[in-house]
């Protein structure tokens, strides 16, 4: 795979060393994937808030900036069905990290990150709107882009592209 080596050299985004959390949060972290120069931390929902709190406050990591929360629908018949990816960035150390959580369709609940990063407010509302993932403890969980009385979640794969 000479290609992937080349990639890490040409693209200069820096990704953090996540080995520090591997032992400390052994129950929460399922695996740490390194691909195309990016590090993904696959985590369980249990203990996610504590993990995020640690990632924000630990001086050598200091992920004080929540760049984005992105949802992915893995397909109508997939199990787990949803993936939610938190893109973290550290303004202090200039490095990034992705924390990914997989969710079952009939139990699509996540704890809110409102108490850790305020930026999560609208980002979580958008995922609730587009995928129907419920964020427990969110201060204002309403639809944001679609009308309030809209039915269905448009970015799910079983939602027709023309709409209903």
């Amino acid at each position, binding site marked *: 795979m000479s290609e992937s080596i080349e990639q890490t050299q040409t693209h200069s985004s820096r990704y953090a060393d996540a080995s520090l959390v591997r032992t400390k949060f052994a129950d929460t972290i399922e695996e740490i994937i390194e691909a195309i120069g990016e590090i*993904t931390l696959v985590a369980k929902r249990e203990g996610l808030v504590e993990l995020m709190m640690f990632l924000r406050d630990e001086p050598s990591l200091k992920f004080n900036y929540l*760049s984005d929360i992105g949802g992915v629908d893995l397909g109508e018949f997939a199990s787990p069905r949803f993936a939610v*990816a938190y893109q973290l960035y550290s303004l202090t150390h200039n490095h990034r990290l992705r924390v990914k959580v997989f969710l079952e369709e009939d139990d699509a609940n996540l704890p809110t990150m409102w108490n850790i990063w*305020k*930026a999560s407010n609208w980002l979580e509302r958008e995922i609730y709107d587009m995928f129907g993932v419920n964020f427990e403890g969110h201060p204002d969980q309403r639809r944001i882009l679609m009308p309030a009385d809209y039915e269905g979640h448009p970015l799910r794969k079983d939602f027709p592209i023309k709409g209903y």
Partner: protein
Amino acid sequence: MQTREIVVPTSSISMLRKPDPLADTRMTVSMGPQHPSTHGVLRLELVLDGETVIKAIPDIGYLHTGMEKTMEKEKWQQVVTITCRMDYLNSMGNDLGYCLAVEKLMGVEVPERAKVIRVLLTELNRIASHLVWFGTHAMDIGAMTGFFYAFTHREKILDIFECATGARFHQSYFVIGGARYDVPDNFIPLVKEFLDGFPPFLEECKRLVTGNKIFQHRTKGVGVISKEDAIDWALSGPTIRGSGVNWDIRKTEPYSGYETYDFDVPVYDDGDVWSRYLVRMDEFHESWKICNQALERLKQPGGSVKSDHPKLKLPERDLMKQHIDVMIHHFLLASEGFTVPVGEVYQSIESARGEIAYYVVSDGAERPYRVRVRTPSYVNLSALPAMVEGSLIADVVAVIGSIDIVLGDVDR
């Protein structure tokens, strides 16, 4: 007549009647979605006490067209036609971010000349976008004249885009692997003419608005957001640099060869509308510096503007006429498109408004499985209540102008 005896002091009238709806001094005002100072179709629900804003609730989604959903059904190379329509004032930057993300996923290296063209056009687009901001922001506050000056010069940049790409707004000029085609011969003189005339114009703008005492009174100390809050709300671009955070993705995670250009990142500490104004006014000059350097590099002759990667480059006509396999390759590329290796990537760049990032997931097919766009306007707008609550209603207009939202970017 006993009238004298039923005269009561006015202060106790309310006790005799039903509760007066006007006695509650709070009033809810729906501002927008057709209000000119909301820069599109933003609706704000403002709870007012007199002229003071108690609570502000932004209502968005009027321009939501499901672009992320549409991207899932387009082929990889067709998605650029959608990305440039999101933030229609900074379309070059949007295309660039998407192309970089897919190039990272495919492991494709872009030729040097294409990088220079990308930097030059993206910076010109940043100037054009800031010019629209300058004109409309000043007009919102009441300085009408700046608008006409700004749009005259923006027109020149749009002419440059038309010369290079054939389109003024939605260029879709950057493609995966480089640029769609090389710039024409009259491109360089046209850019040179614009760049030479720009610094005097910038001085004129500064004399017109920056030194204006009314403008300063309307902007200084208005819409303040502290450094800590700015980070917490994940602001980006000039909005966070106006709060004293020195963060520019072109410097911290350089792409397209930005590390080889000489430019500074303007930062102001006060976190008010005035600071954000000064940041953008300085960015005009920095972008102008980058454009000049890129133009010098573009004068060097030759070189391809598109990657030689077999998936990205269409085969030569002559070879197609001789070899059936080359013909098949061309046919498949043109009809089915190309596939991208399985994986996910998060690529962020500095657009005119802040961090625009693409989280692209590929399942190995000829269409993206999922393209998630983190748009700067959306995240910056979410901090609007934190900036305006407690200030006057007239300041809301100034604050909206200062975070420079584009509703196409917010709603997608």
